[in-house]
């Protein structure tokens, strides 16, 4: 059974600092997704990582995937308040005939001025 774990679950940081959110998963997969959720809102797709060594960047966020270590990271550079949200990683279970995602618990990120 595929399990996905994120850490930390809560992160409070100051503007301008750098930090990394980690996403570990338990079985083989080479498809990993990062989503953002603002309070009371739906999920917004951030990154899709499809192979070992994949790296995607958008603004102050950079995501990477190491399929051998079963680990993805979401790195935040010089954080700004607008990045405050909950971030989820999700791993495709690669079951035949369907795309079934297993989500991590989410990391609630608060960026303080």
């Amino acid at each position, binding site marked *: 059974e595929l399990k996905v774990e994120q850490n930390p679950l809560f992160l409070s940081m100051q503007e301008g600092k750098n930090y990394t959110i980690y996403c570990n998963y338990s079985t083989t997969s080479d498809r990993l997704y990062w989503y953002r959720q603002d309070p009371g809102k*739906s999920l917004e797709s951030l990154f899709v990582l*499809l192979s070992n060594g994949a790296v995607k960047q958008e603004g102050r966020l950079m995501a990477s995937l190491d399929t051998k270590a079963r680990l993805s990271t979401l790195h935040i550079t010089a954080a700004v308040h607008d990045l405050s949200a909950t971030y989820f990683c999700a791993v*495709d279970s690669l079951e035949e005939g*369907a795309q079934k995602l297993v989500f991590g618990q*989410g990391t609630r990120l608060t960026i303080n001025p």
Partner: protein
Amino acid sequence: NAGVTQTPKFRVLKTGQSMTLLCAQDMNHEYMYWYRQDPGMGLRLIHYSVGEGTTAKGEVPDGYNVSRLKKQNFLLGLESAAPSQTSVYFCASSLLAGGLATQYFGPGTRLLVL
């Protein structure tokens, strides 16, 4: 292009009542999903569909039924609501093409069962 829409946005039920949540997508996606989101647990898959007329169980299907009579609609039913079904329900859809299939989520339905 509305994307994924959900009806209703919010509902209060009494234990034992029934209701149906409607999800509609206008992106011609084959795959549709129902999730529930509870505090500290991320999203958990309830049921999903890989095409019109097909449905399958996800991780937490008990107490729910679904139907996909039309490609663009995916209905989630609660036959006899229980307080444990208080949650936020999200519908999503995706199109699998070349191994890439980002799921697009609806705005969510907040359900409170008293």
